[in-house]
């Protein structure tokens, strides 16, 4: 499996550390309420199909990236810097 780091280019999967669902960068407001925070901290989908995950280019450039991939086909559709992914959201 290869992941194209937006900075370094296509690299072997072993250079990366897997963190989990990219929901982690959608941090709720401090006063969003217990239910929203509970959801953010503990509840994750388990999609068959497209999923967005956070990966860390650990032995590469040390950037956090959001990788979009398909859990059915193992296709990797794209990757963007977590910084950019976060900036796109309100």
């Amino acid at each position, binding site marked *: 499996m290869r992941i194209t780091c937006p*900075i*370094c*280019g296509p*690299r*072997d999967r*072993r*250079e990366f550390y897997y963190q989990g669902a990219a929901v982690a960068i959608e941090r709720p407001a401090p006063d969003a309420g217990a239910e929203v925070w509970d959801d953010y901290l503990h509840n994750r989908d388990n999609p068959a199909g497209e999923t967005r995950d956070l990966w860390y*280019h*650990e*032995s*590469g*450039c*040390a*950037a956090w990236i959001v990788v979009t991939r398909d859990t059915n086909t193992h296709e990797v559709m794209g990757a963007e810097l977590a910084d950019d992914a976060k900036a796109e959201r309100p």
Partner: protein
Amino acid sequence: MIELTARTPFDGLLPIEAGALRLSEAAPARMTSLAPYRGRDKALSEALKAAHGMAFPAPNRATGREGARAVWFGQRMALLIGPEPDAGLTEFAALTDQSDAWAVARLEGEGAAEALARLAPLDLREGAFKRGHTARTELGHMHASLTRISGESWRIMVFRAFARTLAHEMREAMQSVAARAGV
């Protein structure tokens, strides 16, 4: 008063020779990481050019020359190797002295890329990884910085604590390349 003896990271470990390959310790040099403040990337590159004669390197590239080099070192970071950094750079970037943090080796000889390819998951062939190209990557199980200095000459950096592991891993890779070459 105790007399302490300064030791280089590869003291007693290098050089290693195998066939046409030779791994030796690089001469100790001042190494400073440059991390530009947000929005100051261009200004830093200009200041670097004025003070030390090289631009801030693009990802996967090194600029400068022997004695005064800037090696791309990760997301928005470069390592200045050689000169004492000009004080003016601090206006645009965070500077950190890393001189004693890294073990630096030089691999030379025909088959050098083949030996490194046994340890790093990269295409290191001449056409893909040219002179002046660099990468932060994995070497064995170590985080490393690899730079092709010239045709068959490479600069290899790992954290200082991994000096012995690097010497061990490289010895095996070099011997395996030499054995296949029949020398």
